[in-house]
């Protein structure tokens, strides 16, 4: 049907996708209150435009985009803004960040949306601003503002749009479900995105472990037109990584430090395509998403359509959470997700899965042992890196060598940790090392600027001292010159002379006055 290529490395972890029953969307319902973090995307946090006490309708703007790389935030239902304060957010740090709490009034009243009748007659720029105004950010996990990604068309010639329906991570079936229930929406969204980007070719990529989604997408693509082509390829983790998928579909590799746009390719998640379609055709902002709630500690796992800001504890109750079975909560999948400290955090635009495993299902990793240099990690690495070397250099904090071994190209997929017979948490080391390098880079920029400012100030002070001295010298010289020119011009001598004259002839005084 199609030619595909092989990617480097990769692993085959247990899929466990059947658990969450892909293909059916359940409704998570309306929780009593929603907590909406102002930073649900990559870039600057949105800036608030409501105050506590305000009553808002569903779809109303709560916070607008602050600058270029940012997205606005909309109310997922009607209710009252009760608090704007730092709250726990889904983030590996378990730190608090600014959130807006919306007390739902239960009526779920919405504002009127205005979509455009026919997007084919609009200019790409006006469509981009519609997508931007709807607050769409990449829904695959990274949360990069979609409108900014679409602006790549201004810099580079593009040929291909890839809709990445790979969803290679175990357990997660949110995209699988979306492809089964709204394949037509994905195709239309992809056509809108392709029109904006000015590309002629749309590749809809689906892994071969999702036959139902594949069939639905094929039907929709045939109905959609000639420009869409469904591609399928063998299941392997992490084929859904942007760069890995491009290698599988085209056989070309994205250069180190480069972007897919360098090859004329842009990748989008199916959820993002649907959100873009909703934004353009119906004027509907992004206020909900499909979240996979799965794991054997849930009695009713499944794919739940949830409003943004829904607390995870509420969703767990809906999905039949059994607290006796579970020891930890994972935001995202088992390979790339992170553990949550508490269930009191909300879901955000990038939450595709909440994994609630039992201890038998996903046991606590045993203590790491020494590296035996078996080399399995290097075979598994999809980015063709040397995980072992990176591990040593990360431990030694040797930034020069880390850079030379291309740490920045690590996609943090976790394949190396998964194959490691010594259970070394390799990805943890890389994440820490990346953070360390990022920090020292910003510190370097900072210290360079401080040095420049310090030197500029030193120079200025020196200049001022010199100027003052020159002024003083000039004044002294002028005074000396006057003194040399004689008493006539010297005011002191003149005054003395006048006083003397006055004393000598007091009669003149009367005549003067």
């Amino acid at each position: 049907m199609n030619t595909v290529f092989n990617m480097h490395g990769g692993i085959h972890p247990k899929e466990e996708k059947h658990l969450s029953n892909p293909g059916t969307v359940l409704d998570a319902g309306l929780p009593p209150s929603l907590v909406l973090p102002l930073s649900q995307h990559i870039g600057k946090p949105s800036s608030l435009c409501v105050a506590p006490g305000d009553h808002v309708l569903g779809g109303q703007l709560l916070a607008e985009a602050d600058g270029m790389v940012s997205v606005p935030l909309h109310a997922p239902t009607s209710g009252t803004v009760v608090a704007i304060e730092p709250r726990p957010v889904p983030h590996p740090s378990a730190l608090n960040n600014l959130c807006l709490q919306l007390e739902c009034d239960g009526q779920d009243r919405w504002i009127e949306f205005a979509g455009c009748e026919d997007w084919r007659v609009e200019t790409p720029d006006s469509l981009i601003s519609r997508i931007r105004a709807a607050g769409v950010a990449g829904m695959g996990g990274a949360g990069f503002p979609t409108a900014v990604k679409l602006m790549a068309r201004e810099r580079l010639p593009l040929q291909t749009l890839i809709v990445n329906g790979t969803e290679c991570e175990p357990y997660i079936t949110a995209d699988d479900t979306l492809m089964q229930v709204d394949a037509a929406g994905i195709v239309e969204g992809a056509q809108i995105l392709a029109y904006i980007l000015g590309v002629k070719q749309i590749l809809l990529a689906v892994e071969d472990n999702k036959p139902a989604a594949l069939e639905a997408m094929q039907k929709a693509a045939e109905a959609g037109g000639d420009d869409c082509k469904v591609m399928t390829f063998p299941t392997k983790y992490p084929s859904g990584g942007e760069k890995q998928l491009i290698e599988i579909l085209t056989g070309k590799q994205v250069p180190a430090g480069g972007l897919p746009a360098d090859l004329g390719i842009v990748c989008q998640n199916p959820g993002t395509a649907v959100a873009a379609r909703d934004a353009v055709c119906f004027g509907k902002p992004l206020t909900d998403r499909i979240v996979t709630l799965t794991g054997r500690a849930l009695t009713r796992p499944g794919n739940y359509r949830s409003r943004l800001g829904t607390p995870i504890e509420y969703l767990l109750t809906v999905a039949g959470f059994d607290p006796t079975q579970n020891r930890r909560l994972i935001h995202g999948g088992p390979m790339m997700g992170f553990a949550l400290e508490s269930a009191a955090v909300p879901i955000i635009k990038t939450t595709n899965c909440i994994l609630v495993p039992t201890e038998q299902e996903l046991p606590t990793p045993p203590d790491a042992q020494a590296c035996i240099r078996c080399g399995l990690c290097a075979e598994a690495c999809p980015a063709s890196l040397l995980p072992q070397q990176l591990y040593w250099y990360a431990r030694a904090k040797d930034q020069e060598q880390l850079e030379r071994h291309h740490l920045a190209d690590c996609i943090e997929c976790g394949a190396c940790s998964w194959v490691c017979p010594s259970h070394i948490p390799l990805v943890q080391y890389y994440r820490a090392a990346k953070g360390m390098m990022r920090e020292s880079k910003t510190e370097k920029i900072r210290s360079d600027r401080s040095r420049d400012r310090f030197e500029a100030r030193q120079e200025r002070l020196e200049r001022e001292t010199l100027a003052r001295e020159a002024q003083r010298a000039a004044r002294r010289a002028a005074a000396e010159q006057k003194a040399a020119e004689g008493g006539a011009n010297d005011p002191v001598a003149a005054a003395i002379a006048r006083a003397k004259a006055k004393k000598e002839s007091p009669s003149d005084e009367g005549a003067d006055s």
Partner: protein
Amino acid sequence: MLTLLQSHPLFAALVALLGLGLGFGAVLGYASVRFRTEGNPLVDQINQLLPQTQCGQCGHPGCKPYATAIAEGGAINKCPPGGQETIDALADLLDIEPQTLDAEHGEEKEPNVAYIREDECIGCTKCIQACPVDAILGAAKLMHTVIADECTGCDLCVEPCPVDCIDMLPRKGGIEHWRWDLPEPSENKSGVIATDRAAA
């Protein structure tokens, strides 16, 4: 001349060596003038490694003077803002043994940023004059404020303030400055062989 050289090989060798010496000497002499390095390159290299806080905790009026002192053989462990990392980097550059931070000059702490409580500021300009990187904005009898991005957290503005309205706040508190920690290497925690752990 030629016949003289031919008949006295020793003399010819001397002349040849003298000629070569003069020729290369001229080249070297020219190069030393033409490609002269301005300043002391070692000072610049050391200065690159210092944190540029310009705080003066080392006893020198700024990072560059301290770099000059180090280049002349001064101690490398007098910089609290740089901490152990800077000392190690300096030791590596100068090929000497790394030392621990000299506690006399202060202790390593998280970077700060100055914050002026603006209601209390009387506009005396004393902090502006103290700031080594011109990071404070204001004029006489008008409120002053710190350009937070440019502040090095050197503490030099705190002392001169007559109304004590400057606070030093931690620079890296928020979620945007958070980063993953290196995992604790667990070879130290448990035995290398699984049965060791079972026994423990």
